[in-house]
């Protein structure tokens, strides 16, 4: 599988070519300037070698300003253009397409735990379908780690206490390295794994053969009931007799939330997470700071499921019923409304 002496890495994702083009562009510029400087040094070194008849260098007064301006402005223009190009690639690396499928990952010393939206779990391995954008929401149980898939040219640090995300779309079936690139302790260099990019049909087969798991959104919905979140976040089931004591979560994800005391915050994954663990950090305008903390009551995986469930609630839904399928929530009987 691995060639023995590669000089350039596999390019197996949709952004890989973009990154390579940018890199080769920079490489060309670097080669030009390095060779230019190198050549000038060598030529001058030979040509102006100290001789008896040339004990001193030229003392001619040269107007330096025009030259200085030239060789300041040219590099500046080049650098700024490359910045713009780089920024474009950066955005493509950071911004997942709308149809990205949500995976979750938890890092700990020294392993990677991944969970597919279908609920299937893997350790130090990640099976993904080719041609499907995938976004992994990541957090760490201990120190900072960093998820790096060289063939995909993507990387993100994985931090304790918050989420970071990484997305890619594999373009070529194959097995690729997966590294931890943030030094995380003794077995840092063993915190590696393999990404298996499979053709879509192979991926379906892989999923179907003997792998079980409850879809994240379903288990998240169960947790929503088990932790009695719905007693306060009643959403559209709120009645004058039983008013909601917390804001509706339907359609919340991705919106700007107005806070008590002014200011807004974007409801991203990290916000949802923090609101569960530290409810009074950001109190939504118009509500009392009465929510208890759930810190220490759920594992990172449970938290992921809950966050995924809240993310999945479209605007105008009611809370899930007991079996937790948000899709069924539309005509949910008010079985737990009392």
């Amino acid at each position: 599988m691995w060639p023995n002496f590669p000089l350039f890495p596999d390019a197996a994702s949709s952004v890989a070519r973009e990154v390579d083009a940018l890199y080769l562009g920079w490489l060309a510029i670097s080669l030009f300037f390095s060779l230019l400087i190198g050549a000038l040094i060598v030529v001058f070194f030979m040509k102006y070698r100290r001789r008896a008849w040339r004990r001193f260098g030229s003392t001619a007064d040269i107007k330096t300003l025009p030259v200085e301006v030239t060789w300041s402005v040219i590099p500046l223009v080049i650098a700024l253009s490359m910045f713009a190009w780089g920024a474009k690639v950066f955005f493509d690396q950071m911004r997942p397409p709308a149809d990205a499928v949500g995976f979750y990952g938890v890092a700990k010393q020294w392993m990677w735990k991944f969970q597919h939206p279908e609920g299937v779990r893997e350790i130090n391995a990640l099976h993904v379908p080719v041609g499907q954008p995938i976004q992994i929401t990541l957090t760490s149980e201990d120190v900072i780690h960093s998820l790096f898939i060289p063939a995909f040219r993507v990387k993100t640090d994985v931090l304790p206490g918050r989420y970071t995300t990484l997305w890619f779309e594999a373009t070529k079936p194959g097995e690729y390295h997966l590294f931890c690139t943030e030094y995380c302790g003794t077995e840092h260099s063993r915190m590696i794994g393999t990404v298996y990019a499979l053709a879509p049909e192979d991926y379906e087969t892989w999923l179907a053969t003997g792998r079980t798991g409850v879809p994240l959104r379903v288990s998240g919905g169960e947790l929503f009931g088990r932790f009695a979140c719905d007693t306060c976040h009643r959403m559209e089931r709120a009645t004058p007799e039983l008013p909601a004591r917390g804001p509706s979560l339907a359609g919340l994800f991705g919106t700007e939330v107005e806070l008590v005391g002014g200011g807004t915050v974007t409801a991203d994954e990290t916000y949802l997470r923090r609101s569960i663990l530290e409810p009074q950090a950001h109190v939504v305008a118009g509500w009392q700071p009465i929510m208890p903390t759930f810190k220490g009551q759920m594992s990172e995986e449970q938290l992921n499921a809950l966050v995924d469930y809240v993310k999945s609630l479209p605007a105008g839904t009611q809370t899930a019923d007991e079996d937790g399928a948000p899709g069924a929530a539309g005509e949910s009987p008010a079985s737990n409304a009392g």
Partner: protein
Amino acid sequence: MTDHVVSRKIYFLVFIALMVGTAVTVWVAFFDLGAANDAIMLTIAVAKATLVVLYFMHVRYSGRLIALTVGSGILFLLILLALALADYVTRGWVVLGR
């Protein structure tokens, strides 16, 4: 650094201004003025610090070099605060994937 001697009167006046500033800061803190609380508090603190620097520390009577030194200290502190804050303020801005 000149040998300028600041009169005792100025010292006492500055002292009184500092005490008044402290009293006002405490007094204002008990009213809910929203964001203005912080603004007033910091303005008074900056004013007090400026008085100390200019008179107690004689910067008003010293040369440009000293003023430049103080200014650069403040400038680089602001650089630290501003650029670090630039990260935290914009963290929620990434376009989210659904």
